[in-house]
């Protein structure tokens, strides 16, 4: 079940989902990828960008447990590429109301390889769906080059924004992904499009 938690919605239906998401993020980014990012209470990976401006796209199971997610940050304010890694862009980092940054793309490790691939397809499809629904034309993102071939293989329109740099976490680069009306078709041609018939549940921002 895809869930969209819009800008800061740490609301009631999402409690279990968000808790398991932050736990899985710790498991993936801190335990596995050894990123040097803050951990809350030894369990949750949360940083300064997990605030009321962040939108979360989450794929959850029937119990509401997190399977995969991405955190979306508006580029009209502080975000990761424009503010933390501007050197990854040859030109100034793309910013605008229709430019959104994908961060913390995370697939829970509590799944086998086949389920992870299924979750990945659903998450990528949900990202495209969300962009078309909300007027996002460009996604930007900072990615380790180890993932580049996989990101390109989704079939969407992707281009580099600058020369990759060797950072602590590995060779890292900035990418832009253009989302258009025909993007779902292109993902489908690559066997990737997987959006459930029921539209994603949208949870509005909590007060």
């Amino acid at each position, binding site marked *: 079940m895809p869930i969209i938690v819009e800008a800061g919605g740490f609301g009631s239906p999402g409690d279990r989902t968000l808790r398991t998401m932050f736990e899985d993020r710790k498991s993936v980014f801190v335990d596995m990828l050894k990123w040097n990012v803050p951990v809350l209470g030894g369990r949750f990976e949360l940083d300064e960008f997990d605030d009321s401006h962040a939108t979360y796209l989450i794929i959850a199971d029937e119990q509401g447990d997190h399977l995969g997610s991405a955190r979306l940050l508006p580029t009209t304010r502080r975000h990761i590429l424009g503010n933390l890694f501007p050197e990854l862009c*040859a030109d100034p980092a793309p910013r605008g109301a229709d430019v959104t940054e994908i961060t913390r793309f995370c697939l829970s490790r509590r799944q*086998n*390889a*086949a389920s992870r*691939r299924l979750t990945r397809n659903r998450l990528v499809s949900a990202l495209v769906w969300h962009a078309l629904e909300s007027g996002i034309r460009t996604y930007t993102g900072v990615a380790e*080059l*180890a*993932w*580049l*071939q*996989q990101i*390109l*293989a989704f*079939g969407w*329109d992707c*281009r*580099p924004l*600058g*020369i*990759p*740099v*060797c950072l602590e976490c*590995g*060779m890292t*680069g900035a990418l832009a992904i253009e989302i258009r009306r025909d993007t779902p078709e292109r993902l489908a*041609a*690559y*066997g990737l499009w997987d959006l459930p018939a029921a539209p994603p549940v949208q949870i509005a921002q909590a007060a």
Partner: protein
Amino acid sequence: MFSRVDAFVRDVRELETEEALAGALADVAGDLGFRYFALTHHVDVRRSSEAIRIHNYPEGWAEWFDEQSLGAVDPVHRASNVTSVGFAWSMLPEMVALTAQDRRILELARKEGIGDGFTVPAHVPGDAHGSCSFACAPGQAFSEQHQPLLQLVGAFAFEAARRMRRMRYSAGPVQLTERQRECVIWAARGKSDWEIARILGVSEATVGEHLRHAYERYGVGKRTLVAVHALFDGTIGFLDVLRR
């Protein structure tokens, strides 16, 4: 130099044939200081008609390479299976244990006019491993600064080649059912049909049936081979097999 790579990425998006891609790759490789490029799936190309292989290596070298069925055993290909980021060929001895045969291949390549090089691995789950390599003439060196750019060129070129191949062969990769996949994982872990039957709670005959269908889909006749093929194309993962 980024603008050169940016232009390449924009160009290849529009290209429709492997010949056009080969031309664009030769140009950008040349601009980055390389005489040769080779973009390939790591399989025996004589037996796998859908495999990608585009290169501008000297003719004799590529022929000899194919005659020896070296596609899957070339030390550069083996090394690129153990990493997800590009590497200079000078790093090879630290990445894989080089055999006498490997040293012979590298020596022969040098005689054919292929010197130092840089390889970008291309791993896509569900597809055979591949890579995009760039090579200089012997005695020439390439700039270390260009390595991040080569990574981009290699990755975008490989994806363009995959797109072209997909347009030609729309059949797609081998697909196993979930049950066949489970049986192959247990077989890869060394379990007999009887043991797998006990683990999955089905009859031994059913396990035999699942595995037989998996053999057929890969066109092989042995459980070891079906496991290797399924690992190779990403249908099963090393962690599935090695997990305790």
